[in-house]
């Protein structure tokens, strides 16, 4: 079996609800091998170990599990447990008078105009939220000492009620964590094997509701994640893989199994993050470091912005009704995918967010859906293959698509082709709105960026979407359908830690701020040690949240490490004002600046799956043409015979002039009239407007 003794493999496994994608990178050959297997939802670890074994076996020459040196893993275990309400029974210990903070939230109702709305289920029910006497003030002063008897009674009651996990969150613990630490000690004395989630460790930032919510979600997911990982590791060992899994987290980096077990909340929403990580690496390789990622699948599209190689972060995110104060990539999701349903609402054409998903799927699948979807529109327009999808693996009924779109056209009183193009226009407008959220609303001009389109449906829609936003360039990666699995191979170990230290930004406050950073550095060092990251592979990035005095929105500014004293204060002010001006268009020169939260990002660099550069293609681009198809072009108001290229046959240096369609197993790329696509050395398609 061991035919390739010298090879070392890096494996990425993206385990979703339907499929598990496996991506194997051969370090020797710099080549990526891809495998897909149905997921096993009852115990995902089964499908994972089976899939990896199959994938290695199916590689040309076969792959030895013992040669797997790295195992990157993206999982939806945490996310699904949260959505489906399958987390652990958990309790909360908090400051007396405040057990309902978790339930009152920000006292707003979930929907402004619906009288039928309900709040997301409260994960620690009221009878399991215990209050203890203690109180810390905003400046860390202890107004009331911790009453340890209260704590002990609370823990015993929770134990009697059978809770599996306990969250601890008291007021102002991010300033003075002593009480929370003592509560933890007492809990462990009473219940030594309790899963504990302590707010000053999970999210040491101000705003009690958001911190409590995050801490409770973490407790809720803890036992689930622990069980899952305790099954996965032995299974991989059985399969001969000794490399310990690294899990993706929502900030785009990976963490060890151990960290994931203690802080499972960090893995929530990690799915789309890996795609952004792959985009960052692709940007680095190609030198295109200002990117807007557009990942369009069957039910939704995820969009994110990467500025000068840095993906943007969001510090306040609400997931399924639960605010989470964990570092997350700023990924915006909109209900616009290939399966999004088009319908007429009082005379206007609407598309989504309702989706036919994968089953029954678009009308053309013939599985029972009769409402036209975005995919059906693309079939009617001739952009998608007329008989089969997935490289011939799936037969479709193009006529059924046409009839469905025709019914819609009838209702709207317009032609069939206008209706089909109309569906594309409306879904494009919806996606453009999503991109405006992550660009324009954050002060970035989309025209300064290149759109990187992936996901099964991204490359079909990218050209029109980019045009809508006046984005000049488009990049379509070699494997648009498996960007997330590729991202798993390229993620650094990464942790973001923070600490709220509210103070005026002044010389007097500097020692306190610096002491805060020293604490964070210490924690980062502990983390580096725990993850066994060699000193040479360590990077620390310091940043500080600042705002004008009394403002409620902070901006995160890189900490000017090279200056001190007055110069440092001045540098922060300048950076803050620059960012403020960019976002809001003004500066309040006379106003004092306040520091709120200190942030440190610790990165442990791992050797990356380096993308392979291919030599210039020998043949002509025309050799990749495998046929033609009549595509409806609204620009010309008619069907036009467009060349059909096979992606695998295109090589570096080839130029494809639009209009054209490029087909490959996992996606279809549509190039508009007036555009040209150039194949780069990494086999990406770079699409631009012809001069």
């Amino acid at each position, binding site marked *: 079996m061991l035919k390739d003794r010298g090879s070392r493999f890096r494996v990425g496994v993206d385990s979703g609800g339907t499929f598990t994608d496996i991506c194997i990178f051969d370090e020797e050959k710099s080549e990526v091998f891809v495998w897909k297997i149905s997921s096993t939802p009852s115990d995902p670890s089964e499908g994972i170990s089976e899939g990896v074994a199959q994938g290695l076996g199916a590689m040309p020459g076969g792959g030895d599990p013992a040669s797997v040196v790295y195992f990157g893993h993206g999982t939806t275990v945490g996310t699904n447990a949260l959505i489906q309400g399958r987390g652990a029974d958990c309790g909360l210990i908090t400051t007396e*008078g*405040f*057990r*309902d*903070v978790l*339930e*009152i939230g*920000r*006292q*707003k*109702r979930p*929907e*402004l*105009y619906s*009288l*039928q*709305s*309900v*709040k997301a289920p409260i994960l620690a*029910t*009221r*009878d399991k939220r215990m209050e203890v006497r203690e109180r810390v*003030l905003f400046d860390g002063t202890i*107004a009331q000492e911790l009453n340890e008897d209260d704590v002990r009674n609370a823990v015993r009651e929770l134990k009697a009620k059978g809770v599996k996990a306990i969250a601890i969150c008291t*007021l*102002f613990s991010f300033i003075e964590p002593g009480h929370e630490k003592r509560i933890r000690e007492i809990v462990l004395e009473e219940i030594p094997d309790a899963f504990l989630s302590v707010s000053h460790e999970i999210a040491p930032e*101000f*705003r*009690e*509701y958001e911190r409590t919510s995050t801490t409770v979600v973490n407790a809720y997911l803890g036992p689930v994640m622990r069980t899952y990982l305790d099954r996965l590791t032995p299974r991989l060992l059985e399969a001969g893989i000794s490399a310990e899994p690294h899990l993706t987290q929502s900030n785009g980096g990976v963490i060890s199994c151990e960290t994931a077990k203690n802080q499972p909340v960090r893995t929530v929403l990690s799915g789309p993050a890996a795609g952004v990580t792959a985009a960052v690496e692709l940007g680095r390789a190609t030198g295109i470091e200002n990117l807007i990622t557009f990942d369009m699948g069957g039910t939704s599209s995820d969009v994110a912005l990467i500025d000068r190689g840095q993906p943007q972060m969001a510090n306040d995110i609400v997931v399924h009704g639960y605010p989470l104060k964990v570092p997350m990539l700023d990924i915006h999701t909109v209900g616009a995918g290939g399966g999004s349903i088009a319908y*007429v*609402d*009082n*005379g*206007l*054409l*609407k598309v989504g967010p309702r989706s036919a998903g994968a089953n029954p799927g678009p009308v053309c699948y013939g599985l029972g859906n009769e409402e036209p979807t975005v995919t059906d529109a693309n079939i009617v327009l001739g952009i998608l293959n007329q008989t089969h999808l997935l490289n011939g693996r799936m037969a479709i009924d193009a006529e059924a698509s046409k009839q469905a779109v025709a019914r819609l056209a009838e*209702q*709207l*009183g*317009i032609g069939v082709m206008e209706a089909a*193009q*109309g569906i594309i*226009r*409306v879904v494009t*407008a919806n996606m453009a*709105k999503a991109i*405006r959220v992550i660009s*324009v609303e954050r002060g970035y001009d989309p025209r300064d960026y290149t759109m990187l389109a992936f996901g099964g449906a991204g490359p079909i829609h990218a050209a029109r979407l980019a045009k809508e936003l006046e984005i000049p360039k488009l990049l379509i990666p070699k494997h648009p359908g498996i960007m997330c699995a590729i991202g798993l191979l390229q993620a650094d170990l990464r942790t973001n830690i923070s600490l709220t230290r*509210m103070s005026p930004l002044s010389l007097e406050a500097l020692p306190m701020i610096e002491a805060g950073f020293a604490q964070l550095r210490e924690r980062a060092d502990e983390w580096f040690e725990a993850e066994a990251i060699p000193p040479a592979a360590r990077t620390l990035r310091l940043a500080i949240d600042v705002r*004008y005095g*009394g*403002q*409620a*929105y902070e901006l995160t500014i890189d900490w000017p490490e090279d200056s001190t004293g007055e110069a440092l204060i001045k540098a922060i002010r300048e950076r803050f004002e620059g960012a403020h001006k960019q*976002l*809001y*268009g*003004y500066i309040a020169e006379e*106003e004092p600046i306040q520091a709120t939260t200190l942030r440190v990002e610790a990165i442990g660099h791992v050797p990356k799956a380096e993308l392979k550069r291919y030599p210039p293609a020998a043949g002509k681009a025309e050799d990749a043409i495998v046929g033609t198809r009549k595509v409806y072009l609204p620009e010309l108001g008619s069907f036009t015979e467009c060349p059909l290229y096979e992606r695998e046959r295109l090589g570096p240096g080839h130029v494809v002039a639009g209009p054209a369609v490029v087909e490959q197993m996992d996606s279809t790329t549509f190039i508009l009239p007036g555009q040209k696509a150039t194949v780069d050395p990494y086999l990406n398609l770079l699409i631009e407007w012809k001069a």
Partner: protein
Amino acid sequence: MNQNSNPTAASGLYVDPVTVEVIGSALSTIVEEMGKAIVRAAYSTNIKERQDCSTVLFDAEGRTIAQAERIPIHLGSLLGIAEYVLKHVDISTVEPGDVFVGNDAHTGGGTHLNDIVFLEPVFFEGELVAWVTNLAHHSDFVDRGHKHIFQEGLRIPPIRLYRKGVLQQDVMDLILLNCQVPRERINDFRAQMAANRLGVQRYQALCTKYGKEVVKAASAEILNYADRKTRAGIAKIPDGVYEHSCRFDSNLVDEVMDLKVRIEVRGDEIFFDLSGNPEQVRAPINMVYTATLATVYFAVKTLVDPDIPANSGFHRPIHVAAPEGSLFNAVEPAAVYSRTDPAQRLVDLIFAALSKAIPEEVCAACTGGGLMTFSGIHPRTNRFYVYNEMCGGSMGARAGKDGLDGVQVHTTNTANIPIEALEFEHPIMVERYELVKDSGGPGQWRGGMTIRRKVKALDHTATVSAGGTNAIVPPWGLFGGMDGTTTNVELGEGVAPLHRRVGQVGPGQSIAMVASSGGGYGDPKKRDRALVLKDLREDRISEEAAREIYGLEL
């Protein structure tokens, strides 16, 4: 049927339904981006944390084309200003870069003086094509009298704060001199200016892309779409006349008043008759007509279709008659500061009246909320501070669902201020923030539980104003559901009784605000026993209530 002839397009230009949808999406994006710009750049906590602001795009004729409101009372708050400017200003003198500012409820501003509105014209190819507008609630004009509007703060009719982009410093100086926290005001004004400037650029870009005539025609068609959608919803309500009356108290007046509403549903239109209600009073609980419109619009939107875009087309099938000089159509010099007191009750009245027609769609009466304001000299900074909080209560129960616990309802939806932000900023300590046991109106479906927020003044004497409606008459239940609880301001040790909501809280003293809570729906004896047991286990109801009211055999 082809519904797509868009007959009212101003220019007669036909725009296909796809283009209308795409332009509609762009227009709503403009007002949303403007709103976010204000929230992010605003200076005061009230606008930033509570997002107490709204943005609107009017067409040249003053019709609402798109609106992004975060608080439903703003649905109508902006209706007056464009109309006022169009009526009182010679439009030929309006130039690009002119900015009108206004706040007077009686002359086209908002619905109370704290809502300061900025209105700016959009010019394209030399033609005035639209108005961008935004409103933000400024926590200022505190510690005032409220017998008539002259006591309530500086009245500003819509006047030019900028001419051709140039700030009229004398006007600004006059406004700032009349504000108690000018430092916040000036920065909030900047945020409002920035939002409008953004709106102007975005609207112009849209005109460049599609042509101003197409944008105009599409805008007109978007109004028609909202009109059709609203009518389709109203048509589902059985035709008929529906009436309801109730008692209404507010601790801002001595007497308990009688309020009533008569609603007629006729085909796809709905008529509200508010005659027979009390005359306007010398207290701040009067509503100007636009505030009444906003309230009615809110009620209709929730019952008919929450997704209707809030534009002038939506307004067309809704007719509201309220006699001038009455509580619901107050005229100068009526004071209006606490207009949400009667507004919340008006929504309850509308729901109760229509409960006979659409019992599944409505909810029992809800909280009126409780307003709590602390102000004084901050002992750490020696500056004047204002802490203003609209404390939520809870929602009335619905058919098949309990009312929401601990929320804001109806026309208000402001967030609370995080305790850890509040205590850092103000000389105040929150002692309790909790749901109140036995407060939800009992019923087969239980009214929501209200909130207690107990606040202590630290190292200074604060002037407080606290209270709300429902101190005497609790929110009612429906279909055999029982009433919720009344509003209560709990005075801590040593605090003298408040007069007309106002009093002093000394160092170390505290008060707690407990707003009224929502009523129940259906007979409590019919409540699912498992739910009664759960409420008992979770300490939401007492054993006594479980036994006596719900009939639980323990």
